[in-house]
Each structure stands twice: as C-alpha cells, then as structure tokens.
C-alpha cells in the first residue's frame, strides 16, 4: 500500500476543467494537479508534478500513452484505448515494460444503473444471466467502430463472466467512411461462473450460457440520444431504459419528454478505482486482460461485418463458424 497521494494529470480533455475540479474534490488518496491538451505539452510543463495521467481522448493523441510510459507515469486511458487490438497491445506492453499501472476508463461500468444491475447480479438476485439487450442511439458522429462498441462489449463480458463464443454483426452503411448503424448478436458460453474474488472466471460463463443483442445507431436527429440496457436472468430481470425515466414537458400540442441523466458520479468512481489499484499495487478493474478481450471481440465484429458470417471463439481467436 502506497501512503502518498497519487497526483494526476488530465490530458486531452479540452479547456473545460470545471467538472474535473469537482471530481478531484471527491477523490481519496489522490487529486488532479495538472491539465494539458497533449501529452507532450503536459510533460513539458508539469513533468515532475504528477505520478499518473488520465488520457481522456486517446484516439486524438496516438502516442500519449507511450510517452507517459516512457516518462514513468501510470496510465489511465479512456476506452477504447486504441482503434484495434494491435495498437492497444503495444500500449499495454509499453506500460508493462515501464513497470507502471495500466487501467481503462470504462465509464459504463461506473454508471449508477450499471452498478445497480451488476450489484444485483453478483448478489445472485437475478440468477444466471440469459439475455442482454442494449440500444445506443445517437445523432450522426464520426467515431471509429471501437469507440462505439468497446463500453458495452466490455460490460457484457463482465455481466456474463466470459467473452462471447459467437459473434455476428450487421450494419447499414450511410457513407463510405462509417456505418450509420451496427447490430451485434453474441453468444456466451456455458460453464464456469464468477470466482469468489471477482474478475472474469477462468472457465468462463454461467451454467446455461447466454446471448446478447445490441444495436448502435448514429442516425438520430441532433439532440439527446437514447440508451437502453436490459438483462434477463434465470430468476429476475433488470431494465435500465430511458423510456422508463422520462418526464413530460407541456408547451402546447403533444408534450415533449425530459430524460433524467445519471449525473457525473461515474467519472469520480472510475478514477477512484484506478487510484486504489495504483496505491494497492493491484490490477485495475478494467485492465490489460479486459482491454485485450474486448478488442478481440471488436475484431471479430469487424470480420463478421466484412464477410456476413458468424465468427466463433476457437480457443483464443475468432474464426468463421
């Protein structure tokens, strides 16, 4: 256990630091001491003032994590970490070689709705997870596939206790660059279950296996997005759905709806989990293994989209079924 405070720098968040100051005030065992638009500039100005870095926009600064590792700074990097497995593994290897901690800022895990569902699942209230249903709809944006998919794929692996055995994907291409819509259909294995100490089980999966259907759309008109996640277990179910959390606003004609958000507490909680991991010299809750696994699945999704085929896990890699 490290007794000293962990000093954090935030890189790539832009100029709005107000939220980060609130987050810093809630942290235990650490605090935010510096901000920078790029890793280079942050190191140049604050090299000796921080121990760890939060890389908030990794896809905009390809070398930020490598530079942090070279400078011996612990790395807490926003999902998807990188656009593909190869690039993500290079970052993981760089951190490992430098002997520093590597963690992934995976906001979805720390949202109140996700935490409530995970808490009830791990307490055995919902039984074995059977079906996960996710909708994430947004207005048009130009994001790499990995950025769309990483949070829910990682969370699904956490919920089922194993990575998918089968991966099938469909897409609608709105322009040459990016699909405007992606649907994922995943199968999960039987056997295993969570070990008492937490983490993914070695054997993988629950007794009955399971399945997930997710869809990601970037075709909504500009404005609020739509989020829905439901988990059907063998003895119960959980529904986290914007449709259930709407209020009515009357201004003439049909009323419009207001959706209550889940606040910003998840940002504080995910950073706290990283600080705790660094101070206690233990793996971050979303660390190397979770990052590799999730990128493997994203790779299988890309292959399925390209070929129209189902890909199945063949002992570590995904191959056509």
């Amino acid at each position: 256990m490290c007794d000293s405070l962990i000093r954090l720098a935030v890189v790539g968040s832009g100029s709005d630091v107000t939220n980060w100051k609130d987050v810093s005030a809630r942290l235990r065992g650490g605090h935010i001491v510096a901000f920078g638009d790029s890793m280079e500039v942050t190191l140049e100005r604050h090299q000796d003032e921080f121990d760890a870095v939060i890389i908030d926009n990794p896809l905009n600064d390809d070398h930020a994590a490598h530079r942090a590792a070279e400078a011996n700074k612990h790395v807490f990097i926003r999902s998807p970490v990188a656009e593909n497995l190869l690039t993500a593994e290079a970052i993981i290897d760089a951190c490992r070689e430098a002997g520093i901690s590597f963690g992934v800022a995976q906001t979805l895990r720390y949202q109140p709705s996700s935490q409530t569902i995970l808490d009830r699942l791990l307490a055995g209230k919902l039984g074995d997870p059977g079906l996960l249903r996710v909708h994430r709809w947004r207005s048009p944006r130009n994001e790499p596939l990995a950025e769309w998919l990483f949070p829910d794929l990682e969370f699904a692996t956490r919920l089922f206790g194993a990575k998918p055995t089968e991966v099938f994907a469909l897409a609608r291409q709105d322009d040459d660059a990016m699909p405007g819509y992606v649907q994922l259909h995943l199968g999960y294995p039987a056997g295993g279950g969570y070990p008492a100490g937490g983490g993914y089980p070695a054997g993988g999966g629950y007794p009955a296996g399971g399945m997930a259907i997710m869809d990601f759309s970037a075709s909504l008109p500009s404005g609020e997005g739509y989020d829905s996640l439901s988990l059907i277990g063998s003895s119960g179910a959980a529904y986290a759905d914007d449709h259930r959390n709407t209020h009515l606003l009357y201004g003439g004609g049909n009323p419009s709806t207001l959706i209550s958000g889940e606040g910003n507490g998840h940002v504080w909680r995910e950073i706290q989990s990283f600080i705790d991991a660094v101070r206690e010299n233990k793996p971050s809750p979303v660390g190397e293994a979770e990052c590799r696994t999730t990128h493997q699945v994203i790779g299988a999704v890309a292959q399925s989209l390209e070929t129209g085929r189902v890909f199945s896990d063949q002992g570590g890699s995904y191959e056509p079924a």
Partner: protein
Amino acid sequence: MNLPEPHDRFGVLVLSVVKHDYVARGVATHPRFKLTVVADEADQPDWIHQRNQQFADEHGIAYVRDVSKAIAEHDVQVAVVSSEAERHCALSVQAAEAGLHIIQDKPMSTSLTECDRVVEAVAQNKVKFLMWNRNLFPAVVQAREVIARGEVGDPYAFHVDFYFAKDAGPPKGSRDPGAPPMDWLETLKAAHITGADGGVGKEPMGELGVEGCYPLAYIAMLSGAKVCRVFARTTAHFHQLYVDNGVEDLATVSLEFENGVVGSLALGRIGAASHPDIGEIKLHILGPKGALVISEARPEVGIYYRDQPAEEFKNQRLLDSENDYLLADSFARAIDTNSHTILDAPTSRAIAATVLAALESSRTGKVVDVP
C-alpha cells in the same frame, strides 16, 4: 350511416377450441360475427371433446363431432381454428375447401409444407385468411401512423422485445435429479386454466415457435418487407419443462430483409418474477429522420393493494378487447371488399418460414436463408 343488417352477419364455426378460446371470444366481440356451432374430428381424444363441449355449452351452441356434417348442417361462413398447432393447417385447409373464410390461432404450423397447403387452399377457394395477432393494439397502430406520416423516414431497423413474464411449472434445476422428464402434453393441458397453453400438442414447441408470430407480424405490417436471412440463438434458461423437452424458452434472432432493412427479436417466457405485468413488449424503430420507442402494453393502469395475489399483474392493460374488435372488424371488411386481411396466408407462411429458419440457425450456429 350504414348499420350492419342481421343478414350481414357471419355464422362462425368454431373449429376445435382446445387452447386459446380468446380467439373465438375475440371474434364474437364484433356484431358481424355470431358463434354458431363448435366442431371437431370424431377420432380426437376425450380431453379435446370435453373442451369443445364445454365451450359450446357456455355459448349455448351445438358441438358436432364431425366437421363436414357441422358445415353442411349449419349456416356458417367463417371458421375459427384454435386446435393444437399440429392440426391447425389440416383444419384450415378443410374449412377453405368448404368455402369458409378462416381465422386461425398462431402459430400457422410447425411444418412449412403444411403452411403451403393453406396458402394454396385459400387462393384456390378464394376465401380470406387471418392469422390472429396483436397488430391492432393502440400503441402498434400509433406506430404505424407515425411511420405512415413519414415522421421517422423509411424505417431501416426494427427491434422487438417480446417477453412473457409467466412461469411454466418448476424452475430449471429445481426438481429432484432422479425425477422423470416432464410430459409436454400433460403439463400444457394442465396449464389451460392459466391460458399458458399456447404450445399444447403432441409435439413440444418452444417460445420462438409458439410466440414468434406476434413480433414478426408487427414487423411485417410496419415494414412490408420479407425476411431473407436469419441468425438465432436459443436456450432453455428458465423452466424445467422446456429443458426436459428440448425446446427453447429464450431466443434472440437477427433478421435481414430483402430491401436491406435489418431487425432483431428478443423473446422468452422469462418467469413471473421478472416483470410487474405481462412482460416487456417493446418496439424499437429507427429511420433516417428519427426513431420510435413504443411499449405495446400502453395505455395501462397500475393497480396495487394489500393482499394482492402474486399472480395478478400490477399494471393492467386497458385495451385488449380493442385489438379483438379491430381484428374482427378488419376481417369483415376484407371479406366485404375482397381485400387483403391484416395478416394473410402468404405473410403468415413467410413468418412461419422465418421462425423455422431461426430454429435451424440456433441448431447449426450459422446464418440461414429463409425459404
């Protein structure tokens, strides 16, 4: 205003009523339809005759153990078929060949060949066919209207969650390991009192087979498109009955349509503890100009009171009978005007083909073309 005259009424032959009597009751909510006689094949087992007789007695009409005789001796123009699924098509073909219009309970059949026989018989005899469905619940009608007005553009993706929060006997794994497998037919016969006997018959049927018709019928109506490829996963996750009989109580299906539209289903009999009412039944529809999220159950009213029975839904749907009336009304209009019914024989056959392809996909783990 043209009010229906008595001679405009259709005499209804209830052609076996061993499971969902709500179809015949639903038809009877419309003044154009008059339940006239119940009939079935003479060689059916006693329990079937008992159910038919009970329904006939309740409605003060005759029960005839000879279908041809019932048709010959009664003034009937419409047959309502609600037998076990494996007899649906044979009875519908018999009715069509006698010149009767047909309202049939879902699923169309467990065999695509049988579905083809119905499509052919209906076409050759120039009668109307309606698969009973849920397409005219107010929320679904509202979705259709929103789409028709172009408010979301031409939809490119449809997703339906169709969960029944009902039990089906002991939970999976809860029985003595040495206990004999649960008998499908006997268990489903016993479930008649709760209405959870949609799969009753000699041949075990999973939830996708029994209920898949409903969500696929929503999509067929709202998209007007045919499914050409499916990928599916199924499992028996909740109930020992389904485990013992090798059928699914949970399923997911990815759908690819001929016109490039995509879709998915999530469907299951997920247990009574999993939802405060009949279950989450939702439509998610995406278009280039917007999107729709519709709860089929609404409008509903929440009812909570001391000593409330556990099996009573705490949210009660308000307009189930409206769907019944509107289905019957649309069927009468289709007969009057010689127009398509809201779920006709070719579309019902296409839905059955999609379900059977999905079941094959779940067995093989591969994407399957829909015939």
